[in-house]
């Protein structure tokens, strides 16, 4: 024992530094305290604390971090800059945190943000389990929740709230876009590979309904834990089911792992086809075109649609380490923009009033074009049925999709009366 104290100190310091590293990454932006409420009196408008504070709550470190994550923070900052908030006299701040895909962590952060840090609006929040928990917190505290990343159609159905806007996509849309297109092409027997939590269950339920309605049959399903590495067992079950279509009701890393391993087991060569019910640009990027080619998917935003989306993408990629935006990032940008317009119009950041104002005003942004927000909180816009290109068809980085069909806005989402939302009279 030469230097026991020294080694001990080094070891302890190292461990602490390491542990603190991950936390510090998450907390980086939390340090700025909200201005004291006294400032509000000086302010003539009804902005609480004089600051409009936006909290980006999503997965910053695990399987959904690329499709949302830091990219969503970039998108919010771009929206604030494009809105020219400063010139319009709005003082807007952004903070972010990692919900770790745990509903309890997510709702705890949301509560803390709203109660102690003066957060007025929470945005993004992929993972339907977390989203439904945050949905309840925001409703109780009468703030604003704009969801872009989560898919569960329950957010505007059974669990709809006067404080929530569901922007980008949902399970009903995915099911009807991809599901019905595939049944029409002859894929009438299905086997589901479903992520075992709120999102997977909702997507499976909505897709099954579409398949049955179109005269198809579901011959089996298997539910796998979230963030599974090895799908071989499940794929073997899918294979022996002899279903024509293996429907992947999962997302992010789960989807890319199941597609990659399906190729290995010769699922497609054996005559079965994969239906990626929720596939993001980042998933295709991670798989590579030779594995992903031919996949049919439904999307509401693609970077290479028009000049506005390409211009946005150029700026976004420059700020996001060269990575292109997913539809989740686009929804976060557009949602923030519309939120700020409503706050400016009302001169107030009162949650329930702002959401009512957001529904009153038509939406208009460079990424989704003109649209509306329905009384149940559903943002309405077009969707696109897309196919992943062959490697030979792709001309450059992220040139991955071709559009098979455009689903008009009035058909893309669940009819208002079918959702069972209490706000619909």
């Amino acid at each position, binding site marked *: 024992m030469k230097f026991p104290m020294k*080694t001990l100190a080094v070891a302890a310091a190292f461990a602490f530094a390491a542990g603190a590293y991950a936390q510090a990454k998450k907390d980086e932006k939390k340090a700025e305290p909200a201005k004291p409420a006294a400032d509000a009196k000086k302010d003539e408008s009804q902005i609480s604390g004089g600051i409009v504070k936006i909290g980006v709550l999503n997965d910053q*470190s*695990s399987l959904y971090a*690329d499709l949302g994550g830091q990219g969503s923070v970039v998108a919010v900052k771009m929206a604030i800059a494009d809105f020219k908030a400063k010139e319009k006299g709005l003082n807007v701040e952004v903070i972010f945190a990692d919900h770790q895909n745990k509903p309890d962590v997510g709702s705890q952060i949301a509560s803390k943000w709203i109660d102690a840090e003066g957060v007025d609006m929470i945005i993004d929040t992929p993972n339907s389990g977390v989203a439904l928990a945050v949905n309840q917190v925001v409703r109780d505290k009468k703030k604003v929740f704009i969801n872009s990343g989560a898919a569960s159609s329950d957010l505007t159905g059974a669990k709809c709230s006067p404080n929530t806007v569901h922007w980008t996509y949902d399970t009903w849309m995915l099911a009807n876009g991809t599901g019905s297109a595939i049944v029409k092409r002859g894929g009438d027997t299905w086997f589901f590979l479903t992520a075992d939590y709120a999102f997977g269950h909702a997507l499976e339920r909505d897709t099954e309904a579409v398949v049955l309605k179109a005269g198809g049959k579901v011959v089996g399903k298997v539910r796998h834990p979230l963030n599974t590495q090895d799908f*071989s067992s499940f794929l073997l079950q899918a294979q022996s089911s002899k279903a024509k279509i293996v429907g992947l009701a999962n997302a992010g890393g789960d989807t890319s792992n199941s597609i990659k391993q399906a190729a290995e087991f010769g699922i497609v060569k054996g005559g079965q086809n994969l239906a990626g019910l929720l596939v993001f640009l980042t998933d295709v990027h991670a798989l*590579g075109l030779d594995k992903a080619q031919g996949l049919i998917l439904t999307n509401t935003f693609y970077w290479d649609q028009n000049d506005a989306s390409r211009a946005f993408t150029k700026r976004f990629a420059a700020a996001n380490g060269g990575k292109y935006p997913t539809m989740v990032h686009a929804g976060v940008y557009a949602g923030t923009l519309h939120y700020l317009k409503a706050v400016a119009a009302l001169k107030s950041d009162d949650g329930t009033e702002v959401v009512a104002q957001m529904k009153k005003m038509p939406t208009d942004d460079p990424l989704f074009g003109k649209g509306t927000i329905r009384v149940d909180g559903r943002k309405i816009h077009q969707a696109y049925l897309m196919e992943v290109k062959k490697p030979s068809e792709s001309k450059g980085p992220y040139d991955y999709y071709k559009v098979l069909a455009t689903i008009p806005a009035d058909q893309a989402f669940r009819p208002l009366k079918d959702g069972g939302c209490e706000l619909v009279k």
Partner: protein
Amino acid sequence: MGQLLIGLINGSFYALLSLGLAVIFGLLNIINFTHGAQYMMGAFAAYFLLNKLGMNYWWALVVAPLAVGATGVVIERFMLSKLYKLDHLYGLLLTFGLALIIEGVFRNEFGSAGLPYSMPSALEGGHNLGFMFLPNYRAWVIGASLVVCIGTWLLIEKTKLGAYLRAATENPKMVEAFGVNVPRMITLTYGFGVGLAALAGVFAAPIYQVSPQMGSSLIIVVFAVVVIGGMGSILGAVITGFGLGVIEGLTKVFYPEASNTVIFVIMAIVLMIRPQGLFGQR
């Protein structure tokens, strides 16, 4: 039947990883929490060797473990070696911290969605065995890891080098007195264990996405395997690795929702009945 085989293939990953852990714990008394990150580094090393240096999979099988093993040597030399005289806990904290740092750095650099790595063309395709479709690559993995596992076991149990190693952990002063450079031997042992993790990473790269969190999702399971097998028991680690792979595979058929937890249930039962693990000595 097919599911049993699949279970064995997953088991071969568990066995390979827990083998490295068991070697490191058995001979160094270090609970190496960095093992998952080192497995991930092996997969990334294979990716870089292919895309930056044009080295194919077969070269990666040799070069990646050596490269990652070398980082292990550095870690042992400059960090772990300062901790041997302290409680186990310090080694655990250090390696756990290192794992967080390594994973964080890789995540910041490469994102979380993962990177593509193609299968070597010689091993593409597969055979229809009648009861299941067996991809060639998986057959190769199961065979190769069996060879590595048996080889390592022979090396430690049956050779002179292995005898020195085992003696050095019992009584380092005595072995040193015979003219053996014990610190260097320990350094190389750690490097070897880390190399085994990296080798498993290269095996995994064509099957799973090469992603920063691929290690953290496996490491807990692998620790359970080591605990069930008996800490430090090499034979225990290998046999339990394969066995638990099979049990997990069967759970995926009969009650898939529990496939993530079944290993821990078994761990709890084993620890209740036989606290030292199935093959542990006390």
